[in-house]
């Protein structure tokens, strides 16, 4: 892929010991939405359907007593809970390591924490980190499959997959129909703090692969022009109403106060321009699905009326977290009879 290109092509490795950053990434990992081919996306979503419908006792045999570690360097409600429920639903043993109650507080590095978890028998690590790219480091350090539960501003691939599942349910398209054209007639607007959003990046990398047109919408401070060049199929629209009018699906994002890094935003102005309000939605996007990855700041990017209203897909998104993450865990920990990794 493009990221590994160099100005001068790197010659084949002759050294006996490849350096740390050349260690292979376990193929069961899910680190970037760009890692998934279209058939893989289809397979993961089909697998999620199978796992969701499966008898709970049979399902619990799939990863019975396999060891899954959740390593969380940032707070999380939805992602952590759904990964944990997914792993437990598949019969795995889980352990949660969070930065405030572990040796991370004492200055232990990510590499050492990963090696420690592996030595304790972890077969898969689910990582949330405030640092972009941290899952690659963990995967290189441990050789284990790493599931990215959000890294810095970079990516949140499991969120993009559960968002896709929500969109397909809304569009009444079954998972088996997933192809590079399945979303050809669909326009998705992602609105708000794109700059700091890993959800936006993962969705923007995933949806165009399936043929969707993706509109990025927000003020220049939170949406630089370069964003549209990230991958083909993206465009920028500063006017929220214009974006809404063009959209089948609208994804609202929170302003990430914790990552603003000195950037000052006029919040009142932001609300006026970009808030999902009932009157606005009714006027220009009365049929659109309104999504939000959470956490919602009610009254900021979205009003209570819209979040709780009939067009809201927010609860369905949360619901889809467990089946998607079950599918990713099964994929990571190897094939069983059904739903295994190809």
């Amino acid at each position, binding site marked *: 892929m493009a990221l590994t290109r*160099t100005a001068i092509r790197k010659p084949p490795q002759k050294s006996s010991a490849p350096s740390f950053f050349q260690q292979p990434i376990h193929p069961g990992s899910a680190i970037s939405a760009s890692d998934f081919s279209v058939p893989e996306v289809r397979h993961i979503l089909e697998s999620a359907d199978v796992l969701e419908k499966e008898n709970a006792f049979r399902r619990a045999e799939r990863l019975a007593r396999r060891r899954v570690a959740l390593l969380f360097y940032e707070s999380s409600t939805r992602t952590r809970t759904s990964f944990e429920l997914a792993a437990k639903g598949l019969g795995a043993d889980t352990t949660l390591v969070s930065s405030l109650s572990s040796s991370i507080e004492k200055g232990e590095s990510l590499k050492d924490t990963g090696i420690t978890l592996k030595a304790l028998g972890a077969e898969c690590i689910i990582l949330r980190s405030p640092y972009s790219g941290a899952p690659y480091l963990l995967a290189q350090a441990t050789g284990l499959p790493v599931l990215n539960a959000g890294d810095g501003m970079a990516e949140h691939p499991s969120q993009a997959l559960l968002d896709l599942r929500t969109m397909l349910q809304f569009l009444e398209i079954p998972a088996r129909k997933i192809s590079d054209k399945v979303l050809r007639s669909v326009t998705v607007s992602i609105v708000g703090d794109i700059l700091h959003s890993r959800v936006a990046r993962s969705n923007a990398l995933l949806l165009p692969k399936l043929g969707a047109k993706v509109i990025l919408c927000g003020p220049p401070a939170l949406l630089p022009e370069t964003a549209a060049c990230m991958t083909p199929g993206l465009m920028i629209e500063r006017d929220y109403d214009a974006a809404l009018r063009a959209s089948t699906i609208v994804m609202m994002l929170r302003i990430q106060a914790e990552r603003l890094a000195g950037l000052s935003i006029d919040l009142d102005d932001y609300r006026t321009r970009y808030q999902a309000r009932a009157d606005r939605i009714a006027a220009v996007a009365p049929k659109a699905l309104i999504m939000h990855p959470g956490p919602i700041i009610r009254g900021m990017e979205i009003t209570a009326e819209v979040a709780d209203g009939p067009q809201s897909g927010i609860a369905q998104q949360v619901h889809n977290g467990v089946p998607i993450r079950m599918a990713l865990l099964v994929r990571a920990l190897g094939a069983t009879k059904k739903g295994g990794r190809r």
Partner: protein
Amino acid sequence: MKPILIRNGRLIDPGSNTDAPRDLLLHDGKVAAIEAPGKIKATGADVIDAKGLIVSPGLIDIHVHLREPGQSYKETIATGTAAAAAGGFTTVCAMPNTTPVNDTPEITRWMQSPERGAAIHVLPIAAATIGSDGETLTNYSALKDAGAIAVTDDGRPILGDAIMLQALRAATQQGLPVIQHAEDTRLTGGCSMNAGVLAFRLGLRGIPVEAESGLVERDIALVRQVPNAHLHVAHLSTKKALDAVRAARKAGLHVTCEVTPHHFALTEERIGHYDTNAKMNPPLRAESDRAAMIEGLLDGTIDAIATDHAPHATHEKEQEFDRAPNGITGLETALGLALRVLHLQHKMPLAKVLALLTARPAQALGLKGRGTLAVGSAAGLVLFDPSEKWTFHAADSKSKAKNTPFDGWDLNGRVHATIIEGRIAFRR
């Protein structure tokens, strides 16, 4: 010490406009004779057969971090200079961002003491302000007397206009260049790579081109106010800053600059999956900037190739990209990269490549008597095979540190021997 006779080599000495088959006799640390092949009769001398090799003045690196005093877990003067010798260098200029900062004559002398075990010449560059805090000038005259050849706050650029103006004035009085790491750090907080699409995609905060060019332009404006001032721009990385230097030179100002091998050999794409061995400051830039560096080297705007050799311990680099320190090693790959990229790919004549590593850096920083060979001059030389292909392995490096993006790279031109003051500092 026994005399050394180097026979059958091709002497390329850009400083004296020499490119011819020559034998050289080294005696008492000096060049005793340079003659056509077979002309020198020296019984009792050690003979080095340089057939097929180029004999060049020892290379000069005007920008290295040797980490002593205070950070010897990363590198020592002994290990850093051993790596330099293996890379063909006989002189390196050591940056002052040590612990403590080299802002006194005592530290400047300490670095040059024989007890440091340097394999080659170390010329300290002293801090421009006390503690490199950008507030109070250090004592330039005392630092110069102690051996400092320039002043800089490398890594912590001098941002204040008034203090930079003071530094230029004080340095000019002493005949010293002011070296600036051109980065407006007010624009780069929390940033770890080049600004642009790739940074956006990787979710990393980007260092804009303007952070470099803006400070270079500001510094050039200040140089105009100080007659005879000499500004040297460290590790230039952007077309915009290069254009500013080019214009300043045209306007007759004394502004010089250097570029690193990684900035002419690599682009930001080398970061791949957040490889911290591609993290340095200034960052690897876009292809258009890399191409501009090549152009600046070809057209002569860029005075020197300098490595910015920045060793770090393994555990420091095996971290999340944002947390890992900036910098890569470079002393053992500089010549091979220069030959591969500039000579082979861009057809720069060998003499011109070597000039960027010998006479021109010496001239840029006013290092008199270095970077060229003449009868009676100090005998610092490198012998290398310009066509030998070899693979660089970080594990084999003489440096304490292995943080290089060039591990496993095929390079052109391999050093066979480095000679300093008539003794062999490195021989393969």
